[in-house]
């Protein structure tokens, strides 16, 4: 358990620090860097407690279920591989924090900087100690995001923004592929637990899904580790502050891909496919990066391409699928982290002190800044692979392995090309050191400013360089046990025997190494003519290619959208209806009789008259849809007949609801019509009418047929019996429909009143902003085109409506109170009360009514929803399920026995929301109409005076 806590704290500490720094963003630089340094130191201390047992073979792990249904557990484990990476992340992190403290100006946004840096540190730690591949993916994505934030730290610079976006696009895209690959891997292995997957390598490699999983995972690794052809984001990521480049883009994040390759080595490596792809990509990247690095002039750009090259070498070594090559990779990861971070910091120092990073303007700096020159030169020598430094040993090991693998069946291919890559590596490393620190200063100005920085800045790179030196001088003592343990963890078995030393006698590797050094020196000597050749060659610019690809994708995606998603409602509706009709026809192919054998109810003559009226009214709506006032009358006829049907077929609640909704709807349409254009609509073309008509008729016949088939059959077993049996005893009401609404299915009702409330608020939002812009202009230009009664507010109507108001309200309250037992309830009563108020608007006008209104519709909606929810939560307080109702009977003198139910409270919420939403929609609409009419009247008055 102690281990579990240690692991959790290890991964949580950077996130806590990030949060703390972000909260204290106003504090000064020292607070930010102090917190970050403390978190890194704390992490290192925690890791130190684990180091000894892990190296001796213990694997502390802990697991908490997170989303068990997906197989996603919060599993953390530290094995030697994780330990080494965690050490790098925290150790270099600490050095970078110290360096960054002195590098960044005190008035920069250091809070944001160190918070992002800690966010990254936490994410990266998460990757290396995740024991579940899905968890690993979560942290993987987080590193891409943190990298985005850090590259774009100087957000005022265009190249920072572009670099950040490019890095996110490439690594994020690779991350997507990786998700697919991991899911495939997990499903093949039968588990997302890393330890389990690592044991099932044979199963995975034998699976037919192995190539797909491999390709996707490699895509993720290659994009993250900037492998050719996905390398191009890394040089552009150099727009980040130098501490970030040193940390993310050389020592840690770009190694995440290498880490994952190493992590999954026992599962993925060993097949022909794996070896060919990974070795080829790594080799290509190694040579490509080295060649480009030789001809760059920006210090950070040189280092970026050298990083690409070195990462290529690591990938290639892992691609060999040889245990000794894996060992070489492990050692080189350590070496590279040490010398490359030191070099980046040195580049930062040079820029800081001279004001430029252009190597063509610098030179001879050893005289002006001897300490920095010593540090950087030693680090560059390690990068070149010169003895007696660490880089020499790992490069030797690499060259020693190359003849063992006959790539493409050619045994000489790998040694030759690897030596070529090594040659260029020596070349750019020598050039970096020699052109920067030796010879004569090329320009006077940067040289004149140059001097050694304070120890705060050179301490961190000096420490790393010291490590690089010691890795060469005392490799077995310093790193022997660690490298052995890590290699064992990578290959999933005992590590091969090894002896890290500078001198192994004269062998092929030494000869190749000497060749590389000699070639590198030659390249440096002949740099000027070579550069001329390089610069005269026309080379594709990766950034422009990337942007062109983006534009290309953008164009075609747009075209595809336009082709499949026509922005035409008519077209979409036509397609939808046609598809539905075709689906029904397809279903009808199954056969069977149309008419069932349920006893039918003979229709009374009056019902047939109503039916004829309904059909005639529908026909009139369709035929006469241009005369809007008449159409509304036809619509209300249909609504009335539908209400009567509800009465006839034992649904009094529905009839009441329908008839009151009808009134409100017609009022709404009247108001809207007044504002919509009245010019008669253009006629559709005849063929189009026929087409739509045919579709409409077939739709009508089919739906009518289904209704007929359903109505003439007896229903299957229904849950209605339960509702009927329990309404009185369980819900305390005899009106089963209402009990269903406020009790059995109250959760549905809650959702529906919320929807209604949102619709009301949406209407408000749509209308509230019509006063401005084009809409406002059109509204003010609106012309009254219907003849009005000379009396705007007929006195009879006004008086009658005021008398009716209290009566209607009484009816509303009555309907509400009896709703639980008799037809009525919150919905109906809200509509009736709304109509009572709307009649006031109608009769006395908007201004008069609005001035006397004592409620706010927004508040009504809010209180309604809150009341309904509070009722439901009240049940939870009493230990029952959400929205469980309770009721009881009480006695009052004079009134006698009466019932109180919490359902009534819920129904109050329904009432308030429905009332509020209806009033909001109509009052707001009439407010707009009022404004338009007033503008019209004012204009007319003005014209009259003129």
């Amino acid at each position, binding site marked *: 358990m102690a281990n579990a806590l240690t692991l959790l704290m290890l991964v949580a500490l950077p996130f806590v620090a990030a949060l703390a720094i972000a909260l204290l963003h106003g504090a000064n630089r020292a607070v930010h860097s102090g917190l970050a340094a403390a978190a890194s130191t704390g992490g290192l201390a925690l890791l130190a407690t684990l180091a000894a047992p892990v190296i001796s073979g213990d694997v502390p792990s802990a697991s908490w279920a997170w989303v068990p249904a997906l197989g996603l557990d919060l599993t953390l484990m530290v094995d030697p591989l994780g330990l080494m990476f965690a050490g790098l992340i925290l150790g270099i992190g600490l050095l970078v924090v110290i360096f960054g403290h002195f590098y960044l100006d005190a008035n920069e946004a250091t809070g944001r900087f160190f918070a992002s840096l800690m966010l990254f540190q936490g994410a990266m730690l998460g990757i290396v100690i995740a024991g579940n591949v899905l968890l690993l993916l979560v942290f993987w994505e987080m590193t891409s995001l943190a990298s985005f934030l850090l590259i774009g730290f100087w957000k005022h610079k265009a190249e920072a923004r572009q670099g950040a976006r490019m890095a996110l696009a490439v690594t994020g895209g690779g991350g997507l592929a990786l998700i697919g690959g991991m899911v495939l891997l997990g499903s093949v292995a039968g588990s997302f637990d890393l330890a389990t997957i690592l044991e099932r390598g044979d199963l995975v490699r034998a699976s037919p899904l192995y190539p797909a999983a491999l390709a996707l995972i490699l895509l993720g690794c290659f994009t993250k580790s900037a492998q050719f052809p996905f390398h191009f984001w890394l040089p552009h990521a150099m727009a980040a502050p130098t501490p970030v480049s040193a940390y993310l883009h050389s020592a840690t994040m770009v190694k995440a891909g290498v880490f994952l390759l190493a992590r999954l080595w026992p599962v993925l490596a060993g097949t022909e496919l794996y070896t060919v792809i990974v070795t080829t990509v790594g080799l290509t990247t190694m040579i490509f990066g080295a060649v480009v690095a030789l001809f760059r002039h920006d210090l950070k750009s040189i280092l970026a391409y050298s990083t690409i090259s070195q990462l290529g070498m690591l990938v290639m070594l892992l691609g060999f699928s040889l245990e000794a090559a894996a060992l070489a990779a492990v050692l080189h990861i350590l070496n590279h982290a040490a010398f490359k971070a030191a070099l980046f910091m040195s580049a930062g120092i040079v820029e800081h002190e001279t004001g430029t990073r252009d190597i063509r303007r610098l030179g001879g700096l050893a005289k002006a800044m001897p300490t920095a020159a010593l540090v950087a030169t030693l680090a560059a020598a390690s990068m070149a692979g010169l003895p007696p430094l660490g880089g020499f040993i790992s490069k030797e090991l690499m060259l020693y392995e190359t003849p063992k693998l006959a790539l493409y069946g050619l045994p000489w291919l790998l040694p030759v090309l690897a030596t070529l890559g090594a040659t260029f590596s020596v070349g750019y490393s020598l050039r970096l050191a020699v052109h920067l620190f030796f010879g004569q200063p090329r320009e006077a100005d940067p040289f004149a400013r140059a001097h050694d920085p304070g120890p705060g800045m050179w301490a961190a790179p000096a420490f790393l360089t010291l490590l690089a030196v010691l890795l060469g001088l005392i490799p077995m003592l310093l790193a022997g046990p660690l490298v052995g343990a890590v290699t064992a963890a990578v290959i999933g078995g005992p590590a091969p025997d090894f002896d890290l030393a500078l001198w192994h006698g004269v062998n092929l590797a030494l000869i190749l190494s000497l060749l590389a050094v000699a070639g590198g020196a030659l390249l440096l000597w002949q740099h000027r003519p070579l550069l001329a050749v390089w610069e005269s060659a026309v080379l594709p610019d990766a950034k422009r290619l990337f942007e062109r690809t983006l534009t290309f994708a953008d164009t075609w995606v747009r075209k595809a959208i336009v082709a499949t998603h026509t922005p035409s*409602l008519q077209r979409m509706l036509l397609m939808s209806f046609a598809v539905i009709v075709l689906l029904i026809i397809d279903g009808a192919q199954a056969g069977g009789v149309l008419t069932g054998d349920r006893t039918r109810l003979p229709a009374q003559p009056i019902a047939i008259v109503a*039916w004829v009226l309904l059909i005639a009214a529908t026909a009139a709506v369709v035929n006469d849809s241009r005369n809007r006032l008449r159409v509304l009358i036809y619509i209300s006829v249909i609504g009335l007949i*539908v209400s009567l049907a509800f009465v006839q077929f034992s649904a009094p609640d529905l009839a009441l609801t329908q008839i009151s909704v009808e009134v409100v709807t017609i009022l709404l349409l009247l108001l809207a019509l007044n504002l919509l254009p009245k010019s008669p609509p253009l006629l559709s073309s005849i063929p189009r009418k026929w087409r739509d008509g045919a579709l*409409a*008729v077939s739709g*009508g016949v089919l739906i009518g047929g289904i209704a007929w088939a359903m*109505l003439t059959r007896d229903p299957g077993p229904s849950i209605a019996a339960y509702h009927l049996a329990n309404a009185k005893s369980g819900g305390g009401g005899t009106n*089963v*429909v209402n009990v269903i609404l406020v009790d059995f299915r109250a959760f549905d009702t809650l959702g529906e009143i919320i929807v209604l409330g949102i619709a009301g608020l949406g209407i408000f939002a749509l209308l509230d902003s019509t006063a401005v812009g084009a809409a406002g202009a059109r509204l003010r230009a609106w012309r009254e085109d219907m003849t009005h009664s000379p009396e705007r507010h007929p006195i009879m109507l006004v008086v009658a409506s005021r008398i009716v108001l209290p009566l209607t309200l009484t009816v509303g309250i009555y309907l509400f109170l009896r709703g639980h037992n008799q037809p009525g309830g919150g919905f109906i009563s809200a509509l009736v009360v709304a109509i009572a108020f709307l009649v006031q608007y109608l009769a006395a006008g908007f201004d008069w009514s609005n001035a006397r209104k004592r409620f706010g519709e927004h508040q009504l909606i809010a209180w309604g929803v809150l009341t309904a929810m509070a009722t439901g939560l009240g049940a939870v307080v009493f230990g029952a399920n959400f929205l469980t109702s309770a009721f009881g009977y009480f006695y009052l003198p004079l009134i006698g026995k009466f019932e109180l139910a919490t359902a009534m409270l819920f129904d109050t919420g329904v009432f308030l929301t429905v009332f509020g939403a209806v009033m909001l929609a109509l009052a707001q609409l009439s407010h707009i109409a009022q404004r338009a009419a007033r503008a019209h009247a004012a204009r007319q008055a003005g014209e009259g005076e003129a």
Partner: protein
Amino acid sequence: MSYEFLLASAIGVLVAGGIFLALRARTFQVVLGLTLFSYAVNLFLFASGRLVMGRPPIWDKAVSEYADPLPQALVLTAIVITFGMTAFVVILALRSFLETGSDHVDGDTVSCDAQDGLANTCDDDGEEENP
């Protein structure tokens, strides 16, 4: 004629009218189409409880047979939601008219050709409305 036939045929007629109007080009006609369609859908849902006369689902000791209350409860809220939807669509149509000066459901068809890259969507639909 049976009530079942009357109701089924009425639903069919309302659906046909609704589809036809929903495919028209002007917003108000589409609103009318949706209204007709809503009547049809509500009646159809209600019909799934079958037709029963004189036995409203008001519980009583003396009664043992009722109309199915569940479709009624569903339709009751559906009617209210239909109002909310109609109101929203009407206001949306109004706002769109106020913003663009056109009450065509797909916006102003005249400016269709001017829209860069979208011109190919204005095929037959663009010229379907003959003055």
